[in-house]
């Protein structure tokens, strides 16, 4: 394997390449995309050499484009990810979703004692600076990317 990122076109004509996923996180991102039912071909590259992060993962999904909610989910799980839309063996568009200050009705608070788990409460998670970039609006529990769960 060479140390350069594979050209998307070497893999597919049309689809989506998600680049710069943290090492060994691609399976989690893939699971979140819920592609199984669609039956799309998927290629996963784990631990590819990266100049910036030493090792990174990539996902290639044939003949598929994410909607805006899915784009947001990708960046919540993989903060450095870029989403590349592929057409005619070329990168047509690079998407880098911006994080909102509050993510509403998308993420579950991982704190089992939180009020959101015992009562019908709109889910709200704040995005903050620092090592633990998520904070539940209600219980103020702070957590990291690897504890992210979606509704």
């Amino acid at each position, binding site marked *: 394997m060479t140390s350069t990122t594979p050209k998307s076109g070497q893999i597919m004509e049309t689809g989506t390449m998600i680049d710069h996923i943290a090492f060994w996180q691609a399976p989690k991102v893939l699971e979140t995309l819920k592609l199984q039912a669609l039956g799309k071909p998927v290629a996963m590259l784990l631990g590819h050499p990266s100049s910036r992060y030493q090792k990174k993962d990539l996902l290639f999904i044939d003949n598929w484009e994410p909607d805006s909610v899915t784009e947001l989910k990708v960046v919540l799980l993989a903060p450095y990810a870029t989403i590349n839309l592929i057409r005619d063996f070329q990168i047509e568009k690079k998407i880098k979703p911006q994080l909102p200050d509050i993510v509403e009705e998308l993420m579950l608070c991982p704190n089992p004692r939180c009020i959101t788990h015992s009562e*019908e409460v709109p889910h709200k998670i704040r995005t903050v600076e*620092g090592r633990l970039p998520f904070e539940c609006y*209600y*219980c*103020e529990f702070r957590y990291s990317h690897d504890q992210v769960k979606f509704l």
Partner: protein
Amino acid sequence: MMSTAAKTLRHLVSMSDLTREHIEEILHRAESLSSQPTLEGKQIALLFYENSTRTYSSFRTAIHRLGGLTCGFAGTAGTSVLKGESLHDTIKMFEEYADAIVLRHPRDGASRWAADVSSVPVINAGDGQNQHPTQTLLDLLAIKRTQGRLTGLKVAMVGDLKYGRTVRSLSQALSLFEDNELFLVSPPSLRLPLDQVERLQERGTRLQHCQRLEDVLSEVDICYMTRIQQERMEDPDEYERVRGFYRLRAKDLVDVKDNLKILHPLPRVDEIAHDVDRTPYAHYFEQAKGGVEARCAVLDLLIGGPL
């Protein structure tokens, strides 16, 4: 006269809602309110979903002292909550005839949710393991009263710094005031979580981690003791090993500052020996008595009428 702090504060849910100006305003009111009837004609709902006799009586006393009336419940036995009524619906019920709601709830975040649905001010009297802001305000009141200031202090926080919510809130509040230095005294497995450390350091508070209380006792102005719960320790042998380090006895208080005061959120187990009670450094019972005044000040700030 209404202060600007009063105008911007609608609920008291978390210490993170409070600025330094709010804290100063509340402590100032705590000192100046005696038995002024600023809650005359007002009804305050005390909704206590779990028993906490001390906090409940402290709030009730504060409300009566200011001339207000109380309704609600202490413990959920015999209430519609037992029949499965949601917190949302209970809040909607009580806001009809209460001017404010004081809420104690076993779930983390319950007070923020209550504040979002309530049309009247909500005061958090403890939401699970998350926040208990009036406890922190009474801690600050004790520090202010004994030291005359909230700046330039050396404060030891001792015991369970990982799970103890009082330590988390108090350290955050002290970081709003300049030149405070915190000595974080705990066993390695109960250290203050890293994100908390980062938050304090961002505000320029100096921190020192230490494992033994005796190493810092002679330096500090305030020694804030907390309980180490055995079930929190990963290793039972470690509990036996560390509990001695964090047990304060009168004979440990030889080479200390004259102005040293020992605080504790109470109840204590055995981390402060009873012989400490008779030293001039013990201040935990006076600290607890300040709870009524701190709660009077919060009630007055949020819903008190002009005199």
